[in-house]
């Protein structure tokens, strides 16, 4: 009998499972309990969808801003009269426009001059105190192309109408005054005189001050509204490549005697800063989405722990059929990964849908960065692995006899 030894027998080597068998056996739990699988995958899906839509919406508004900036141009610089050292409103010289035009890279200059005294009312019957916060400006005819504004209704001031009591209203001003269309029948009172509304502007992203403005022709302002002829804001378009150079000489050129009394700004910077602020907020929301994802992961872990408890007889049977501990571990790990991958894919679809719907409703381009999609999927797989690891190890450590005797 001693001659017969284990060493003389063929070596026992457990066969490796094929990848498709691993997937199929991992899907057993999902197939037999579809509702539970759906609900725990839903937890993951909500987390991923929240994160994808936060990133997607923020990227879409970013893409919209880029589109806006490229159509509006980032080469607009504005020069505003500031304050004197004594804190009084400063005045730019009347020649400022002409002097700036002589700077070589400057392609276009336009100006508005605020008329403090001229208040705007819907009619003569409105009490004087109710000014609606609308400012009156004398505007050059070339203002419109320089700031990139567009007309919603009517026409802009031209060489003829700038001499007459004609006014163009900004989008906000028109709304506050209750004027919806331009035409001979629409009249408002500016500085006590009836002006015909010849045009209404769309909102102007690079010159938001014009949204609440009533603009009249320069000559008309001087003739009828006691305008002093001093420009208060200059708008310049320059060669993009030399923008910084222009910016550095702009103040001194506009007001050589007191360069400190003018403010130079680049309105597109303000738009980009606004975007940066909303991105910081998106970062916060992303964190909230991350917490949702984590909660989803806890749901998957919970499902897996219960699944292992309930399926002890199955584990015992598989061990009796020749499954190694590693193969049992792999089965439950695969189940957990499948569960979270399903949730992840569902979440990506859901998040993409939300982003597309949001972008579509605002007319933005829908943009979902590839890193967000790939990152989301990797995050779910990592969560699935972590959530499934402990239950899978517990399943594999179960002794076959104990597992089989469970009823």
């Amino acid at each position, binding site marked *: 009998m001693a*001659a*017969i*030894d*284990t060493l003389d*027998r063929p070596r026992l080597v457990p066969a490796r499972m094929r990848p498709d068998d691993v997937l199929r056996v991992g899907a057993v739990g999902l197939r*037999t309990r579809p509702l539970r699988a759906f609900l725990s995958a839903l937890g993951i899906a909500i987390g991923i969808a929240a994160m994808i839509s936060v990133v997607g919406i923020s990227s879409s508004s970013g893409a919209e801003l880029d589109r806006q900036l490229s159509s509006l141009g980032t080469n607009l610089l504005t020069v505003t009269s500031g304050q004197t050292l004594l804190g009084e409103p400063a005045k730019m010289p009347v020649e400022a426009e002409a002097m700036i035009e002589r700077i070589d890279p400057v392609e276009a200059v336009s100006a508005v001059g605020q008329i403090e005294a001229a208040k705007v009312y819907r009619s003569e019957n409105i009490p004087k105190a109710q000014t609606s916060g609308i400012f009156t400006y004398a505007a050059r005819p070339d203002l419109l192309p320089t700031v990139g504004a567009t007309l919603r209704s009517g026409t802009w001031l031209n060489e003829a109408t700038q001499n007459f009591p004609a006014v163009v209203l900004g989008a906000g001003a028109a709304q506050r005054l209750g004027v919806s269309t331009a035409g001979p029948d629409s009249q408002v009172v500016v500085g006590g005189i009836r002006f015909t509304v010849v045009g209404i502007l769309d909102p102007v992203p690079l010159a938001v001050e014009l949204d609440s403005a009533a603009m009249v022709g320069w000559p008309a302002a001087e003739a009828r509204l006691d305008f002093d002829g001093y420009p208060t804001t200059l708008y310049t378009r320059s060669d993009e490549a030399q923008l910084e150079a222009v910016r550095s000489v702009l103040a001194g050129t506009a007001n050589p005697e007191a360069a400190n009394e003018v403010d130079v700004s680049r309105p597109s910077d303000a738009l980009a800063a606004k975007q940066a602020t909303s991105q910081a907020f998106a970062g916060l929301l992303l964190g909230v989405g991350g917490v949702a994802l984590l909660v989803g992961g806890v749901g998957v872990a919970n499902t897996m722990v219960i699944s292992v408890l309930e399926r002890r007889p199955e584990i*015992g049977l598989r061990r*009796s*059929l020749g*499954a190694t501990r590693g193969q049992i571990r792999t089965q439950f790990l695969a189940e957990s990964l499948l569960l979270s991958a399903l949730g992840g894919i569902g979440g990506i679809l859901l998040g993409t849908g939300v982003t597309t719907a949001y972008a579509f409703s605002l007319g933005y381009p829908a943009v979902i960065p590839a890193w967000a999609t790939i990152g989301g999927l990797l995050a779910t797989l990592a969560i699935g692995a972590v959530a499934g690891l402990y239950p899978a190890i517990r399943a594999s450590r179960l002794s076959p006899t104990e597992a089989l005797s469970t009823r």
Partner: protein
Amino acid sequence: MTPPVIELSDVTKSYPGGVKALASVSLRIERGELTAIVGPSGSGKSTMLNIIGTLDRPSSGSVRIDGYDVSELSDSRLSALRGTRIGFIFQSFHLAAKVPALDNVAEGLLYSGLSRGERRRRAAVALERVGLGHRLDHDPHELSGGERQRVAIARAVAGDPPLLLADEPTGALDSVSGAGVMELLRDLNTSGTTIVIITHDREIAAGLPRQVRMRDGRIVSDSVTDVTEVATRRNAEFGVA
């Protein structure tokens, strides 16, 4: 020279708390035998089955299955031993619900390394062998108790293991389907498979060629009945001349 299929020598199994489920049991079962291990509940027969089936290791003593010393094998090699050498049949069948008979049987070959197509082909052959060739697509809940146990037997024999271990295979069945299952096990034995049946039913044990009686963790008797005599008696019972 082929080694005995089962060789236990001085096997003891004790549990924490001092309970001795098996006390110095020695047993040798040769290839081709059909053996009943019979005893009341608590006699240690289930522990014996677990140890023979390598689902559990003894506290002391040596266990050789198909020539392999179980104590020398790692857990994964033991798994391979179970997968290739031993087929299990349980009282409660352990079939997966809502899964057709064919796939339930094919699951028995999942850890064999065969492709899915080959597993299903062999499963169909095994089902044919147990007389369920016409029930391949039926779910367990569409089958009678006897048919379910036949599916479980098909799963156990699909990989052609030299040893079949049956734990109360007729315990959950009525007498007619129970007799059918026993008949099937005898047929499988005739075609060469070594079979060990655990039962508390003396009548079933009496119909088998060898009976190992257990009580309190010890073997109290090990008798071989004249098989021809058994066959004669059985034929008489069923009214066959």
